[in-house]
């Protein structure tokens, strides 16, 4: 309807007429681009501004108060931040979160990439396999946690039975503070394999087949094709997976909440877990907001480094 009219009525991209001065032509073209930018960005910009950005600003305001949600807010300035920066719990929850990312990301990326490459080939029943590997992504964490608590049950779980059979040590998994996070990582990587696979599969699909053909004519081995064609051309998708996995990884919560509840003895408590507890169980919403802004600063810094560094390895068309 409306968009069709725009197509007809606005020959926006016609090249500037030669009689215009170069400067004003450039300005006009810039204005026109600005107009197009508004057109393309407003439909997402307005809702994001209203329903995410405004609440973000509110939460920054809350972070300067003491507030238990059920009574009036008390102004405390930066006291929440000061308290968090000196509280050893803050360092612990950030440490656990980083540990989670360090364990989770390589597993899920390597696994997801291998799966995507394999399931991109002509295999009988690959539609079925793609669906099978995606099912855990859509299964609720409540169910997944139950299954993994059994698999990793220290006394009679399947994993420890296999380890016992191989004469390997059998850890206490989620009941042992030093292994609780490992249990969360295993379950999360398993569940999210399909997520990474789907994104990388879509990326693989956009790689022109001619490039492989050309490489084959040049006698490139499968490994060489993978290194020189697949990886570089997949790098925009990989970049997306890295940035999103880090942003999401820093906000890991659901799996910790249902698998270990942050325990035992707080050994697997993560930043957002702490934020949730502070807000909804402990009536310290101001402190929770402050903590989320510390988290924001960390994620922002990490993402900025990613975006800076992308020039070195991300190849756009």
């Amino acid at each position, binding site marked *: 309807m409306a968009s069709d009219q725009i197509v007809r009525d606005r020959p926006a*991209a016609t090249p500037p007429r030669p009689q215009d001065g170069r400067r004003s032509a450039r300005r006009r073209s810039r204005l026109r681009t600005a107009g197009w930018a508004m057109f393309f960005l407003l439909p997402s910009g307005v809702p994001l501004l209203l329903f995410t950005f405004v609440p973000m600003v509110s939460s920054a305001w809350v972070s300067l108060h003491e507030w238990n949600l059920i009574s009036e807010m008390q102004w405390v300035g930066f006291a929440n931040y000061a308290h968090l920066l000196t509280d050893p719990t803050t360092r612990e929850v950030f440490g656990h979160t980083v540990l989670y990312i360090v364990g989770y990301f390589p597993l899920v990326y390597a696994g997801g990439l291998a799966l995507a490459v394999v399931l991109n080939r002509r295999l009988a029943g690959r539609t079925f396999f793609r669906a099978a590997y995606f099912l855990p992504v859509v299964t609720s964490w409540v*169910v997944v946690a139950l299954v993994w608590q059994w698999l990793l049950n220290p006394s009679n779980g399947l994993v420890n039975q296999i380890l016992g059979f191989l004469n390997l040590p059998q850890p206490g998994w989620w009941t042992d503070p030093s292994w609780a996070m490992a249990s969360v990582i295993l379950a999360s990587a398993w569940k999210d394999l399909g997520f990474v696979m789907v994104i990388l599969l879509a990326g693989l699909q956009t790689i022109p087949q001619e490039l492989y053909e050309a490489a084959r004519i040049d006698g490139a081995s499968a490994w060489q094709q993978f290194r020189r064609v697949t990886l570089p051309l997949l790098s925009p998708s990989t970049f997306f997976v890295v940035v999103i996995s880090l942003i999401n990884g820093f906000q890991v919560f659901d799996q910790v909440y249902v698998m270990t509840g942050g325990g035992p003895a707080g050994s697997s408590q993560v930043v957002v877990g702490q934020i949730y507890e502070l807000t909804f169980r402990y009536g310290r919403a101001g402190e929770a907001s402050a903590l*989320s802004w510390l988290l924001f600063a960390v994620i922002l810094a990490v993402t900025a480094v990613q975006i800076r560094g992308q020039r070195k390895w991300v190849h756009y068309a």
Partner: protein
Amino acid sequence: MPETTTPGTTTPGTTPGTTAGTAAGQPPTVRRRWSARGGGDGAPPRADVGRVLLYLGVGLGGLIMLFPFLWTVVTSITPGGNLSGGPSLIVEDPTMDAYRTLFDTLPMWRIVLNSFGIAVASTLCQLVTGSMAAYGFARLQFRGKNVIFALYLATLMVPLQVLVVPLFIQMTRLNLNDTYFALLAPSVASAFGIFLLKQAMESVPRELDEAATIDGASHLRIYATVILPLVRPALATLTVFAFMSSWNSFLWPLVVVRSPELMTLPLGLSTLHGQFTTEWNVVMAGSVVSILPIAIVYMFAQRHIIAGMAHTGFK
């Protein structure tokens, strides 16, 4: 990667490790062998062994991935729905009682319809708002682009857990609580989808839209007729993720919905957990009901991810 697929192993004169550039005078037989692999006939015997191993690996992995779902189904048709004794795939006296209980105790049709409607609306909105913004970021040069993109990404960096209360207060002031609009509004646009599509669009060769520009096409036309068809796999991917995140969202619906008529699936399923005890067969039946629609959406999107190939013009 399986070593068996290396042309060097079957073609004398090409040693493995030769860089792509040096083997220019490759005999055509190699090419035929490569193209024959896809059809499955004429492949060398060693490749068959590799293929068997591959199938074994993929099949075994697939079973491990499928197991929890199968177990969910099995528990949902097991009478009594007891969780003890560990996961089992054997059913004695299968029964649909749990599903009957589920549909008797909850207005399931209404609930599923609510969830489905909101998920579809949110997905469509995200496809439109997301692909438009992605085009803006990938193809337009305007001042402050990087800052604006950073602000978009920033919306992903504050956890929902602290945004829920301010957002709820905001909705209360706007008198929008307990409405479909409030349920939908926060998921009309997502920086996740914009970023995903922007990355896909950046992979599209610029020569294509430059050609269109010379033909006098506007940005809107290039967006709709050149870029969108080329990023169909990414659009299909976003469809799956947008649908899924709306379908599974819990915290926001929990606080914003009051009327039973607006209840969504995760809210409905959460009421099956009692304060002291839970009937797990009913919970698992609910779980099956909630997984199937996303699985169907995924299968549907899958075909488009593959179909996307036919339209790229690359082949």
